[in-house]
C-alpha cells in the first residue's frame, strides 16, 4: 500500500464508521481524497482559502460532538463521515418489503436504483458549492461571509457522505461514480451537474439567500425522504445530514428576512408608502420588494423542477422497493404500501389546469413537492410578518406551480404567477413582470459591495438578531488573510 497508509484516518477524518478498521473503504477514500482537495481548491470558494473562518465542525453525532466551533482554514476543515446512530431492530417502513428487516447491505436487486438515488443526491452537494464560489468577494458582512463558508463546507461534507455510501456499498461502480461527482461542473456545457437548478448561476447574495431558502429546502425534503429508506446506511447518513441542512435554510430564511427588514425600514425612514415605486425605493440603496418577489418566483419554479415529473414511475419504483419514502413517512397514518391509494395532482388537461386523483404510488414526487411548497409558504409568511410589522402594504407569495416550469406537466406551456395560461407572445411580452429583468439584476449587482469590517453590514441588509455560537455583534467571524 502507498505511504499514505501512515495517515491516521480516524484523526484526520472524523467518523463513526470505523474507517481505520475498514481497509477497503480507506483505500477507496485515499485514492479519492487528493482529487477532492483539488476540487475544493479549484471549484470551492474563490479566495479566502488562507483566511481563518469561525466554523462549526461535526466530529461526532452526539449533542456535544456535532457542532465544534473554532477558527479553521477551509482546506484544513475536517470533513467527516458521520451516520446517525443505528436503531436496533429497524424494519423497512414502507413499500413491498414493509416490515422486513432493514437492509444493512445493498440488496443486489436494487443496486442500480439505489446507486442512482445516491448519485443524484450526491451530485447536488458539490454543485451548490461551485455555484456559490464567487460570492465571497461581495459578502455584505463577515457574519454572512462566515455563513456562506459554513454552508459550503457542509455541502462538501454532504458530498463526502454520499461518496462514503458509494465507496462502501457499491463496489467499483460506486468508486467510479464518486470520481464522476468531482468531474462534473455546475454550468459546464460538456459535463454539467445532473439537475437543472444546479447549473444555474448564483450571481448575487439575494440569489444565494433564495437558493438556500428554496433549493436547500428541496435538499432537505429529499434527505427526509431518503432518511426513511429501508437501506439503513442511507437512512442513517441522511438523518445526520439533516441536522446540518437546518442551518442552511436558516441562512436563507433569515437572509431574505433581513433584506426585507432593511428595505421596509429604509422606506419608512424615507416616508415612502408605495412599495411598488421601485425607482424611489432603489434610490435608497435597498432592494425593492417587487424585485424580491421576482427572485422568489424564479427560485421557486427552478426548485419545483427538482422534484421531477408529477407522475413518475421511477418514484413509484423506489418507494415500492423500500428505498425512498415520503416526507416524514414515520408520521403518516396509512398503510405505507399505497397500492390502493390515490393522490390529487395538478395537471394540464386539454389546455386547462385541473386537479386529478391519480394512483398514489405514481404521484410521490408530487406529494413531496406539496410538502415542500407548504413549508416554503410558511417561510414566506414570516417575511410577510416583517413587512406587516413595518406597516407596509405588500405581500410576498409563492407563484403558481404552473409558472415558468421546465419539467413535468407544465413544461410545455407558459403561465403567469397566478396560474393563468399565457400565449408564447404574451409570455415574451410580460416576462419581465414576473422574473428579474436584466435591469433588475444589474441593480442588485450594483449593491454587491463587500463589507469586511467586523460588526458592519452592507446598507441593503439588516444585522442578524443574534450572533453565531452566541458571539457578540462585532465578532470577527472571518480573519481575512494577508
Amino acid at each position, binding site marked *: 500500500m502507498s505511504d499514505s497508509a501512515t495517515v491516521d484516518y480516524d484523526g484526520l477524518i472524523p467518523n463513526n464508521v470505523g474507517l481505520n478498521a475498514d481497509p477497503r473503504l480507506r483505500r477507496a477514500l485515499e485514492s479519492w481524497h487528493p482529487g477532492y482537495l483539488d476540487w475544493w481548491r479549484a471549484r470551492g470558494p474563490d479566495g479566502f482559502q488562507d483566511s481563518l473562518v469561525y466554523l462549526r465542525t461535526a466530529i461526532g453525532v452526539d449533542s456535544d460532538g456535532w457542532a465544534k466551533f473554532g477558527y479553521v482554514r477551509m482546506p484544513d476543515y475536517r470533513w467527516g463521515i458521520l451516520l446517525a446512530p443505528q436503531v436496533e431492530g429497524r424494519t423497512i417502513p414502507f413499500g413491498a418489503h414493509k416490515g422486513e428487516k432493514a437492509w444493512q447491505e445493498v440488496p*443486489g*436487486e436494487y*443496486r442500480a436504483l439505489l446507486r442512482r438515488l445516491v448519485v443524484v443526491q450526491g451530485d447536488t452537494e458539490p454543485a451548490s458549492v461551485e455555484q456559490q464560489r464567487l460570492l465571497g468577494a461581495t459578502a455584505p458582512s463577515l457574519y454572512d461571509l462566515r455563513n456562506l463558508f459554513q454552508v459550503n463546507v457542509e455541502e462538501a461534507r454532504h458530498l463526502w457522505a454520499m461518496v462514503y455510501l458509494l465507496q462502501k456499498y457499491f*463496489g*467499483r461502480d460506486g468508486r467510479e461514480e464518486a470520481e464522476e461527482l468531482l468531474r462534473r461542473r455546475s454550468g459546464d456545457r460538456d459535463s454539467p451537474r445532473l439537475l437543472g437548478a444546479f447549473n444555474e448561476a448564483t450571481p448575487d447574495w439575494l440569489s444565494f439567500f433564495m437558493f438556500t431558502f428554496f433549493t436547500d429546502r428541496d435538499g432537505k425534503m429529499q434527505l427526509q425522504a431518503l432518511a426513511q429508506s429501508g437501506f439503513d446506511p442511507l437512512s442513517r447518513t441522511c438523518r445526520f445530514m439533516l441536522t446540518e441542512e437546518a442551518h442552511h435554510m436558516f441562512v436563507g430564511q433569515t437572509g431574505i428576512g433581513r433584506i426585507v427588514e432593511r428595505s421596509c425600514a429604509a422606506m419608512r425612514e424615507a416616508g415612502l408608502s408605495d412599495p411598488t415605486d421601485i425607482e424611489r425605493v432603489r434610490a435608497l440603496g435597498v432592494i425593492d420588494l417587487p424585485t424580491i418577489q421576482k427572485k422568489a418566483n424564479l427560485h421557486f419554479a427552478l426548485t419545483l423542477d427538482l422534484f421531477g415529473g408529477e407522475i413518475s414511475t421511477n418514484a413509484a419504483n423506489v418507494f415500492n422497493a423500500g428505498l425512498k419514502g415520503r416526507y416524514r413517512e414515520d408520521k403518516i397514518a396509512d398503510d405505507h404500501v399505497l397500492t390502493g391509494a390515490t393522490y390529487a395532482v395538478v395537471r394540464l388537461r386539454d389546455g386547462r389546469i385541473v386537479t386529478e386523483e391519480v394512483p398514489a404510488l405514481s404521484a410521490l414526487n408530487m406529494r413531496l413537492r406539496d410538502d415542500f411548497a407548504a413549508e416554503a409558504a410558511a417561510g414566506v409568511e414570516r417575511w410577510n410578518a416583517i413587512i406587516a410589522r413595518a406597516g407596509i402594504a405588500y405581500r410576498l407569495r409563492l407563484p403558481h406551480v404552473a409558472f415558468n416550469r421546465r419539467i413535468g406537466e407544465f413544461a410545455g406551456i407558459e403561465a403567469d404567477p397566478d396560474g393563468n395560461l399565457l400565449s408564447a407572445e404574451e409570455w415574451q411580452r410580460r416576462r419581465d413582470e414576473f422574473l428579474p429583468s436584466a435591469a433588475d439584476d444589474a441593480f442588485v449587482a450594483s449593491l454587491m459591495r463587500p463589507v469586511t469590517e467586523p460588526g458592519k453590514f452592507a446598507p441593503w441588509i439588516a444585522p442578524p438578531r443574534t450572533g453565531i455560537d452566541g458571539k457578540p455583534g462585532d465578532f470577527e467571524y472571518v480573519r481575512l488573510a494577508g
Partner: protein
Amino acid sequence: MDAIDFRTDPSRYRHWRLECEGPVAFLTLDVDPAGSLFPGVELKLNSYDLGVDIELADAVQRLRFEHPEVRAVAIRSGKDNVFCAGANIAALARASHQHKVNFCKFTNETRLAIEDASEHSDQRYLAAIGGPAAGGGYELAAACDWLMLVDDHRSAVSLPELPLLAVLPGTGGLTRLTDKRKVRRDRADLFCATEEGARGRRAVEWRLVDECVPPSSWDAKVRERALALAATSDRPAEAQGIALPPLERKIGDDAIAYPHLRVALDRGRRLATVTVTGPTQAPDAAEIYRQGATFWPLAVARELDDAILHLRFNEAELGIIVLRSEGDPAAVLVADALLDERADDWLVREIRLYWKRVLKRLDMTARSLFTLIEPGSCFAGTLAELCFAADRTLMFAGTRAGDNRPAAILTLSALNFGAYPMGNGLSRLETRFLGEPESLQRARQIIGVSLPAEDAAELGLVTAAYDEVDWDEEIRLMLEERASFSPDALTGLEANLRGAGPETMETRIFGRLSAWQNWIFQRANAAGPEGALKLYGTGRRPKFDPERV
C-alpha cells in the same frame, strides 16, 4: 414426475435395441407403449417421449466410444407397420411448458449429435423407413445421411404438425427440409400443410427421402446401403472401444457429487454452483486407453454433461449457474496437449468432439452462466472454454489475506482456437472477438502463458477483475441482481447475446425454429383448453383465434 435420470445403458433400454454386426449397427426403435415417463400415457405407434430419446442419445454416444468399428448405423423400426409416429401428443399435452421446451431442446441436441457423428466421427447414419414416419419420426430420419423409404404404396413420410396439432415440426424438421435437404420452399410448404405427407416417387422427387425401395428387396437393400455408407468411413476396424460405465453420482438435498465435479444447490438464492476439479495427476498418453472412461477429460465431460441435463430438467428454478474450478492448471494443459497432439487418434477425436457437444449444451442452457476464476482454480485450455461460454466471467485479482494459494491465472491452449466450435461454426473466442479481430490475434500469441487477472482483463478474456477488496461484494450484488430479473427475459437476452456470428442450420434450429415453437406452445391455439394439442384425439375440432400476430 420423478427426477429424470439421463444415465442408462443398452441393458436397461425399454425402447431401443442396439445390435452391432461388424461395421454396421442396427438401432431398432421398438417403443414399449407402457414405458412413458408420464404415468398413464400410452406410447402408441412408436411415438416417443423424453424417456425414449434419452435411450437414443445414450445409444448414439455409446456407438461412438464403445464401437469404433461401427462405421454405419441403420435406424429402423421394430414394429411392423410404423417407423415412428413422432413425439407422443398425450405426453406433450401433459407436460409443463418448461418440460416441453427442454424436451424439444434435448431431442434437437440428440439429432445434431447424430449429424455430428456422421460428419466428424465418420459414423454414418441410415434411416430405414420401413413404415409411416410422421412428425418427429420423419425428423429423426432427416437427421440421417441417407433416407430410404419402403415403397409399399402405403408408407409415407409426413410433417403433419401444422394441420393436426397446430404446432411446428420443431425437432429440426422445417430447418432440415430447407437447409439440409434443400427442398424447394413451395414444396416444403405443401408438404407441411398436408397431413398424409408424401409417398414413393413423389417423396424422392421432392428430395424428402433419398430412395424408395420395394418391400421385396427391402432388407437386402438396407444392408447394402449400410455397407455402402460404411465404406465411406475412416473409423478403425481393429480398434477396441472403451466402455462407458454408469456415472457415479450422489444426489443430496443441496448437493450433487460426481468424482470430478460437484454441484452445490442454493435454492434460496436460486443458484447452482458447479465446481469442476482438475486432473489429480498429469494425464499420460500411454494411459488414455487403459483409463478409458476415467481419463480425466472424458470423465469430466460426461459428468458436466449429466450435471447440465440434470439442472435443466430437475432444477428449473435455479436460474443461475456459477461455474468454478479447482486444481492445477498445468495438469489441465498437459491433458490439452495430449488432445491436441493426438487429434488423429479415434478416441481422442471422440473426446474432443464430446467436449464440443457438452460446451454447446452449455451454450444452449437457459440459465445465467457466470464463471468465477479464483485462486486455486484451473481454468486453462479446454476448461477455459467455460469462461468464454459464460454470460460473464469474473476473475479474482491478487490473493486473499490468509489464503496462501497463488493468485488466479487463466491460460489459453491451442484447443481454444477451433477445437470446440459453437453452433455458429466459430470458436468461442472468435465469436467473442467478432468486432475486434486484433484481440483474437493477441490471444493466439499468448497460448500457454499464465495470465493474471489484470492481463486477462486487459486482453478482454474476462468481464472484470476484482481484488479482495471488491470481490465478495461485487459477486453478491451480481448474483442478487440477476436473480431479481425476469427469468423469461433473461432466457431471451442470453440466447440472443450468446448467438452472435453467422447463422448455421444448427443456430437456425435453436434460434428460429425453437423460438417460434416455444411461442406457439404458449398460445391458446395450441395449448389452450380449446387448442389443438388439448383436443387432439377427442375428435373435437380446435377453436382458433383468427387474429394473425
